[in-house]
């Protein structure tokens, strides 16, 4: 048989070379990656997405993921190709390791082959050697290897798998097909280098239909890579730009049928990706909002550190510098000789440019050069030249911030242009040397190329002995390592097979809580992982643990952990019952690590929780192995209904429900109630107030919100802003009189802040006249506020609110001015200096006046003040709750009645607002009445183990001295001798919690806040030492009343009440049929007419819809929030069959079919009219 095939195949030279290239590329790919998969392991690290189960893979077809409770919307259709291929390979070979390694080999070998084909084309069209020589084949192959295996692809595609490998591997052939379909040269290309065989794919550009197929199939192949949407945007720009170039070269009329065909082609390119991009677009806004919540400009300076042109032009991006602990990191960052050969590539690009200019077919060359320069401009980020353009783009161009990880986001296309251009350069060099018969020089050039190749492919080959991502960390004096090379242990499979079918309809709470990512150390097997929670990818249940970057649901799932942290086990149990959470899973393989565990949840540990659970009969240990213990919540009796309920408790609360504290308070107000609906929006309350049977008001802290002086920034002077202001002013002019006094004051405060900002700006610009003008206009604004406030007649709380508002702004302005006068530049103009000091005193006197009468939280005197709004008259039960383990409630008052220490009271309250004052005390770490220090002496005070939290260190000066001293708090004992030479680089900076220097022995008392956050228990130390120990001054310092005590923050103390009316009768039985994560059917049997709402505990989304068919008509129910969840008003529960769907899904399916039809039509039209 083999002989028969071999006889049939004609082994022509081109064919042998092609086969050789394929074999060599496979061998190269295998050599590059085999070590990662040796022993049946996989690569799994940080953001890697790897489907560990078929169920998880299937979830990608839906636009709602429920595996991470309480669910998140998203559109992962672009992932389908990746997920499907890896799942298929896993099924075929019954090994995830084999599946992943095969995918890796496919990408690497494909990228070598496709680049090799492209480089042959470039050789043929641009370099045009006199005749075919094997040396060119070798060079092509070498550059193909460099393109596939280099510093960029190692970091961004392979060692942490990123689906952009889909693009890298096929982009060369995709763009080549574009060149073939729309050539830039007018003369047809001769095929001297390509096989003449007509059966070959690469025959001539007469076979355009084949190139059309190649273009669209390769385009589809890249889909998964385009999940990073910025790649798609760049790809579209790339294609569009090329087509414009083509039209330009084609020398045809602009308004012609040909132009229309080209436009049609571009439309087909868009349609090719529309089937998956449309769903992504639906989720895009939320995704962008959550991802850019930190702001995109914050990455600017950090990302720019090493991305300068010198590094970028020799293919050396910032991530290699910042993030790699590998052995080769030292070579690439510190050893300048090792990376010297990398200069070869930019040299070759310049050389190519010098050589190519006489060539008529240089369109493609310049096309690549523009891609290179454009991408390089982004890649270099905030580095000169013209960095202001990039900064401006980040700040003002919508979505440009997507380039925040510039080397990654623009690097893909940068690499794509970089290697073809340097290949052209080397091919030209070879051609010249051959023409001049300089064979020795040719050999030297080849040698340099090989040396450069060793450096550029170093991470894959040269440093393969240690090229696996590892993180070393210490916990409780023991060393641990997370490694990207890992294997899922059998214990996970055991848990999976146990839970299969048992967790349907309920959720599982994991202890400890993960962050965005999770981690485990499997010492038994010598493996570990740090990355997305394996359990959620592995077991088809709904897990509560990982953040979903949606504030409401995240706050909700944080609350049970907060209760555990406080040791409130009863509250924790109630929370599980209230929310149909059927299992608690204790993970014993977790070693606390900063990025994967919450520092402030150190008490909510597996050991402590197991202690609670073992003692309670409501929990039953149902499964245990070395890594897990699973408890079922017995009192739920396995009655799970996928989070659907017909609530019997209709709760109203004024809480904003946007923090874990808020949900803890709500859970405590609900106590043992299981089925509930919570209304916290005014418009919903207006509609459904008659159904409310539990009022749960929460008191809000007064004076906890402060405005930082840094928030006062120069006003926006852009044209758009001015235009908006003008329109606003015009509108306001007509309606100023109709404004309430309250709003008039607010507007005046804003105006005064604007004037103040302008004044500060003028001062900084040394504009004397402007400064004078703004000082006087600012004073006028302040006077205006005074006048308006004097005429403001309102209730106690409204007046107090206004005082708080004025005080907050005035305090921020005062701090800013004070800082300017103390630390700013020297003001030479006496008049302005005098005016500024006068202004400061005006601000101070106004602040003192407000502070005399304002009613707000006083952290100094330890009085927490709150406002309680009672929505309905009745006998309330009120509770004061403390979430700070370092605080103790002493007493509190509600209205005018004082209560001593009782945390829960009962009081009859009328509708209206009540003041609540809570006196508290704080735990002190040290309290030293007096401490004397000789000049040059270092004082060390052992603070012992300090629990996590916010602290205040304070002292008063027993003597007056100008000596400069330093106060330091460290988490390690330091050698005092090191401190004597403070400022030297030997001091271990990581040990410092705070370090403050200055002349503190003046007239003011010293006070500073600091925060302790550690997963480990450590001993802390306070150091007091002189900064000029050699001073001739023989100063003896005396510290009085040195205090370190726990400090309170807004939100630490909660005060909430509840007023209960009789509940509806017991929970009706409902049956829920889950068709998919986006489609449910809720069946309510007859005789259950006891309520009017339906609640679904997945995250609220406007696309969730509940409807029924009545008399053949679809009836949609009103949808609103129940806290973070969904609720519908359904009139009654009498014998209903309600469908609940996530609407986006059907829209996406429709879009899929419409896109396919349009694509087929457009492609048909294109093929028909292409050559006419």
């Amino acid at each position, binding site marked *: 048989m083999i002989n028969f095939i071999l006889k049939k195949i004609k082994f022509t030279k081109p064919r042998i070379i092609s086969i050789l290239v394929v074999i060599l590329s496979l061998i190269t790919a295998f050599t590059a990656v085999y070590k990662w998969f040796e022993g049946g392991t996989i690569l799994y690290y940080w953001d890697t997405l790897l489907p560990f189960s078929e169920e998880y893979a299937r979830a990608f077809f839906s636009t709602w993921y429920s595996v991470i409770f309480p669910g998140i919307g998203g559109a992962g259709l672009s992932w389908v190709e990746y997920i499907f291929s890896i799942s298929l390979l896993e099924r075929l070979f019954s090994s995830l390791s084999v599946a992943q390694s095969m995918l890796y080999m496919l990408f690497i070998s494909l990228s070598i082959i496709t680049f090799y084909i492209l480089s042959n084309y470039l050789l043929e069209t641009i370099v045009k050697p006199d005749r075919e020589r094997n040396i060119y084949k070798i060079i092509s192959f070498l550059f193909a290897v460099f393109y596939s295996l280099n510093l960029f692809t190692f970091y961004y595609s392979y060692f942490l798998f990123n689906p952009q490998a889909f693009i890298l591997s096929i982009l060369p052939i995709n763009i080549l097909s574009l060149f073939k379909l729309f050539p830039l040269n007018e003369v047809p290309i001769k095929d001297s280098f390509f096989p003449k065989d007509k059966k070959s794919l690469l025959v001539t550009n007469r076979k355009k239909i084949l190139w059309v197929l190649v273009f669209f199939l390769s385009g589809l192949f890249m889909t998964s890579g385009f999940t990073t949407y910025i790649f798609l945007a760049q790809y579209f720009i790339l294609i569009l730009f090329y087509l414009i170039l083509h039209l*330009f070269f084609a*020398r045809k009329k602009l308004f012609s049928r040909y132009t229309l065909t080209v436009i049609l082609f571009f439309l087909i390119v868009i349609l090719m990706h529309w089937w998956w991009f449309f769903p992504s677009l639906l989720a895009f806004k939320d995704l962008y909002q959550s991802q850019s919540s930190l702001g995109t400009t914050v990455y600017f300076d950090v990302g720019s550190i090493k991305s*300068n*042109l*010198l*590094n970028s*032009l020799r293919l050396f991006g910032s991530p290699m510098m910042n993030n790699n602990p590998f052995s080769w990191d030292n070579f690439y960052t510190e050893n*300048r000789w090792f990376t*010297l050969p990398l*200069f070869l590539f*930019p*040299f070759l*690009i*310049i*050389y190519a*440019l*010098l050589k190519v*200019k*006489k060539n008529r077919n*240089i369109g493609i060359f*310049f096309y690549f*050069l*523009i891609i290179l*320069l454009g991408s*390089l401009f982004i890649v270099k980020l905030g*580095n*000169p*030249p013209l960095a202001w353009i990039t900064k401006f783009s980040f700040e003002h161009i919508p979505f440009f911030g997507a380039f925040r990880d510039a080397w990654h986001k623009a690097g893909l296309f940068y690499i794509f242009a970089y290697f073809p251009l340097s290949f052209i350069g080397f091919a030209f060099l070879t051609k010249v040397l051959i023409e001049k018969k300089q064979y020795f020089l040719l050999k030297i050039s080849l040698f340099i190329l090989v040396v450069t190749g060793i450096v550029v492919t170093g991470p894959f080959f040269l440093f393969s002995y240690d090229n696996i991502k590892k993180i070393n960390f210490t916990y409780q004096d023991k060393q641990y390592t997370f490694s990207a090379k890992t294997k899922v242990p059998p214990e996970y499979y055991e848990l999976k097979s146990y839970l299969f079918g048992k967790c349907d309809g309920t959720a599982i709470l994991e202890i400890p809580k993960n962050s965005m990512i999770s981690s485990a150390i499997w010492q038994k097997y010598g493996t570990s992982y740090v990355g997305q929670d394996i359990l959620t990818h592995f077991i088809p249940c709904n897990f509560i643990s990982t953040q979903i970057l949606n504030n409401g649901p995240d706050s909700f799932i944080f609350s049970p952990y907060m209760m555990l942290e406080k040791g409130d086990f009863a509250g924790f149990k109630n929370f599980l019952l209230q929310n149909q959470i059927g299992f608690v899973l204790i993970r014993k393989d977790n070693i606390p690590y900063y990025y994967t565990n919450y520092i402030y949840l150190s008490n909510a540990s597996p050991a402590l929780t197991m202690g609670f659970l073992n003692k309670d009969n409501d929990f039953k240990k149902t499964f245990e192995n070395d890594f897990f213990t699973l408890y079922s919540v017995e009192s739920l009796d396995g009655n799970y209904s996928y989070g659907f309920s017909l609530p019997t408790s209709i709760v109203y609360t004024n809480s904003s429900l946007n923090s874990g504290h808020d949900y803890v308070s709500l859970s405590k107000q609900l106590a043992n109630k299981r089925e509930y609906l919570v209304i916290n929006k005014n418009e919903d309350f207006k509609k459904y107030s008659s159904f409310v049977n539990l009022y749960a008001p929460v008191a809000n802290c007064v004076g906890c919100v402060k405005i930082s002086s840094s928030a006062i920034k120069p006003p926006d002077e852009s044209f758009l802003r001015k235009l908006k202001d003008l329109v606003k002013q015009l509108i306001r002019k007509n309606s100023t009189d109709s404004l309430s006094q309250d709003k008039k004051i607010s507007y005046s405060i804003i105006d005064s802040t604007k004037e103040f900002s302008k004044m500060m700006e003028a001062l900084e610009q040394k504009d004397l006249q402007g400064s004078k003008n703004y000082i006087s206009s600012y004073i006028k604004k302040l006077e205006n506020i005074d006048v308006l406030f004097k005429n403001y007649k309102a209730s106690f709380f409204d007046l107090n609110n206004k005082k708080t508002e004025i005080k907050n702004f005035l305090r921020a302005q005062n701090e800013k001015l004070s800082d300017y006068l103390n630390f700013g530049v020297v003001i030479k103009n006496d008049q302005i200096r005098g005016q500024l000091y006068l202004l400061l005193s005006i601000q101070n006197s106004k602040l003192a006046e407000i502070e005399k009468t304002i009613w707000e939280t006083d952290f100094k005197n330890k009085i927490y003040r709150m406002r309680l709004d009672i929505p309905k008259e009745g006998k309330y039960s009120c509770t004061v709750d403390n979430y700070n383990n370092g605080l103790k409630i002493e007493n509190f008052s509600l209205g005018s009645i004082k209560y001593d220490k009782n945390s829960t009271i009962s009081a009859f309250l009328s509708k209206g607002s009540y003041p609540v004052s809570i006196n508290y005390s704080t735990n002190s770490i040290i309290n030293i009445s007096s401490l004397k220090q000789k000049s040059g002496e270092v004082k060390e005070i052992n603070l012992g183990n300090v629990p996590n939290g916010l602290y205040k260190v304070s002292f008063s000066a027993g003597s007056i001295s100008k000596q400069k001293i330093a106060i330091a708090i460290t988490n390690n004992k330091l050698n005092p001798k090191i401190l004597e030479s403070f400022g030297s680089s030997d001091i271990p900076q990581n040990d410092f919690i705070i370090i403050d220097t200055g002349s503190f022995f003046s007239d003011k008392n010293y006070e500073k806040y600091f925060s302790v956050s550690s997963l480990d228990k450590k001993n802390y130390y306070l150091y007091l030492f002189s900064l000029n120990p050699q001073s001739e001054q023989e100063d003896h310092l005396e510290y009085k009343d040195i205090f370190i005590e726990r400090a309170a923050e807004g939100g630490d103390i909660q005060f909430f009440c509840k007023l209960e009316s009789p509940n509806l009768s017991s929970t009706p039985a409902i049956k829920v049929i889950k068709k998919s994560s986006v489609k449910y059917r809720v069946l309510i049997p007859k005789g259950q007419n006891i309520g009017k709402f339906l609640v679904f505990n997945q995250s609220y989304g406007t696309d969730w819809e509940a409807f029924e068919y009545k008399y053949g008509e679809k009836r949609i129910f009103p949808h609103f929030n129940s806290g973070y969840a969904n609720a519908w008003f359904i009139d009654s529960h009498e014998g209903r069959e309600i469908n609940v769907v996530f609407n986006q899904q059907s829209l996406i399916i429709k879009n899929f079919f419409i896109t396919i039809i349009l694509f087929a039509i457009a492609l048909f039209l294109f093929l028909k009219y292409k050559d006419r």
Partner: protein
Amino acid sequence: MEKYLLKKIWHKSKEGFYVYSSQKFFLYWPFFIFYYFILRQVFGLNYFVIYGFSIVLIFLRLSFETIALIFFSISLIVYFFGLTTEANHYFSFVYGFLALSVLKYFYFLIKERYFKDVF
């Protein structure tokens, strides 16, 4: 007149350097690297010198590609001496002249496309 001038510019931009270099030995491009280091030694390292040097090179009708090569060589030499920050400055000029080269290409391409008779 205009037609003649454009032709002259086109010709100079492509061939100017070769004409000069063949006529005057001291204007051979590698010598400019040496000249720059003399300037750097005399005037010190500042942008005035680098910009001035670039302008002189442009006036001498060296092609943008050659100027890019000169700055690349200067960059490589200072890198040898461990002055990586300075090498980075010169790379800005390499990058700039590559960009100018692209602009020049498109300028002549447009001229050729719409004023074919000029060339």
